[in-house]
């Protein structure tokens, strides 16, 4: 899915724009009083402007890895490069002001208004009032909260979903190039989470941040990630690849098991209907077309299959934004089309 040509494992040379934003070199973390490292000899490069999902079972070191990037946890060994600069020795507080940070419990300051919460980092950076105010409103708009309505509210007056939007806005406040997110949507109900996912991707299209995102939900990782890093216990990287790569070419048994038996079905999420060679709908028989179940062209094959099973029909019409039918997808030819795309093993 990602456009980047950088080999995610390697550290790209050459033009600064193609240099990875975050690079972990041989990073380990052993907590005091423990012998087994939480993270062991980890190498990881996060390409500029992409979303990397850190996934794995609990205790696999994914959160530790994330927190070492803004040095909430200090690595025991290894180097961390942020935009080419070794940040293992710089002032941790100043480093964190350059990195957005969002956590599951949101952690909004209850005694600050929404506006004051978002303004925290700009205030520390000494921006003037006018600029801060402008930025707050801009960010509230971005996360879909009306500034006039929400700016002066207190966190306890917001729903969980609204709080997390404010959390994201607060992390974006000083326009950091990097965002670290620790299960930000983990405590939110499934319906709202779905919506937040879409909005999140929408925001990312505008802001183009380099994002590291911890989750234990593979579904979420597949939906949001440009790359997925799967961790095994002991903080080892089991596979680092695109969602498609993870689903179709699991590197080892651990990944295969983690991805589970539903991998083929999950992969259908990744295939946009627009990339398929759809069947013609007989133009003469438009009443038939109208009677068909429709799915939007922007959807995935998963949506189409879901619609077929739901309506117990073997054909769906694919429609564009204006509701015009652009083609049909049939149950019995579906597998052939997938083979044509060369995605089936």
């Amino acid at each position, binding site marked *: 899915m990602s456009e980047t040509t950088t080999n995610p494992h390697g550290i790209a040379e050459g033009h600064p724009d193609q240099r990875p934003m975050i690079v972990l070199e041989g990073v380990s973390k052993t907590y*005091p009083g423990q012998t087994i490292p939480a993270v062991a000899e980890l190498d990881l490069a996060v390409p500029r402007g992409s979303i990397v999902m850190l996934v794995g079972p609990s205790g696999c070191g994914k959160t530790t890895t994330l927190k070492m990037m*803004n040095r*909430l946890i*200090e690595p025991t060994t290894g180097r961390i490069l942020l935009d080419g600069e070794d940040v293992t020795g710089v002032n941790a*507080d*100043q*480093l*964190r*002001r*350059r990195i957005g*940070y969002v*956590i*599951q*419990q*949101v*952690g*909004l*300051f*209850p*005694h*600050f*208004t929404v506006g004051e919460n978002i303004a*925290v*980092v700009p205030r*520390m950076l000494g921006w003037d009032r006018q600029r801060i105010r402008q930025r707050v409103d801009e960010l509230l708009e971005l996360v879909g909260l009306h500034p006039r309505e929400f700016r002066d509210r*207190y*966190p*306890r007056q917001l729903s969980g979903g609204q709080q997390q939007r404010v*959390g994201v806005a*607060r*992390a974006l406040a000083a326009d950091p190039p990097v965002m*670290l997110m620790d299960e930000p949507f983990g405590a939110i109900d499934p319906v709202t989470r779905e919506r937040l996912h879409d909005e999140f991707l929408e925001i990312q299209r505008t802001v183009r941040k380099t994002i590291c995102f911890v989750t234990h939900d593979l579904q979420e990782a597949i939906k949001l990630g440009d790359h997925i890093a799967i961790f095994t216990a002991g903080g080892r990287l089991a596979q680092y690849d695109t969602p498609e790569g993870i689903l179709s070419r699991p590197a080892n048994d651990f990944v295969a098991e983690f991805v589970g038996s539903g991998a083929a079905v999950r992969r259908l999420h990744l295939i946009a209907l627009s990339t398929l060679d759809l069947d013609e709908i007989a133009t003469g028989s438009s009443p038939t077309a109208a009677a068909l179940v429709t799915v939007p062209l922007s959807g995935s094959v998963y949506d189409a299959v879901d619609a077929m099973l739901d309506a117990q029909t073997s054909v769906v019409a694919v429609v564009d934004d204006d509701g015009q039918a652009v083609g049909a997808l049939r149950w019995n030819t579906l597998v052939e089309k997938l083979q044509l795309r060369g995605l089936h093993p």
Partner: protein
Amino acid sequence: MDPISYLRENVGTVLFYGEQHFLVVLCAIALGSAISIGFALLVSMDAGSQRWSLDWIVGAVREGALVVTAAALTVPSLALLVLLLPLFGLGAATTVTALTIYSLYTVLRNSVAGLSSVDASVLESAKGLGMGRLRRLIWIQFPLAWPVILNGIRVATLIDVAIAAVAALVRGPGLGQLVLTGLSRYGAANAFNQVLVGTLGCLVVAAVFEIFYAVVERLTVPRGIRV
């Protein structure tokens, strides 16, 4: 003479002692709160360090202070007052010192509890946004703990108002003087009234403090965390 007419005829005297009572408690509470809150801030600073030994020492000092101040609160007031006499002599200094000592535990306990009860996720995000120790303490921990601390100051004040009455026995200022005079004039006219007014006057002083704290709370507790 009934208590009301006694009060009416002696309003000046009673007000004088009441004011003394108020001021002596105010001094002690201000002093005790400054010491306790300052100490609590020092030992509650969100460590965020990985120096475990330091954390352990700070924790031990904190618990030790709580234990010692709690023990101090158990010492009978007259005993503490006479123990302080050789150091501070008869009068206000001994009184203020004793009342300060009695206020320490309550304020300290509430301050430590309030500062340490600040939600861990709030502190983590503060740290994640790049706030240093001191800024976290001033911007986040203290304001969030303030309602609990203020309540500790309130309770300590009530305790001190009652104890201050005993201070008259070491020539301390305040309404205890009325009780003492009444006691020494047992059987004489108005002796009972003096004791009654001196005793109930403490409740009036406490009520003034309560009003004062209600106003302070209104003015200083941020709207977002007001219950």
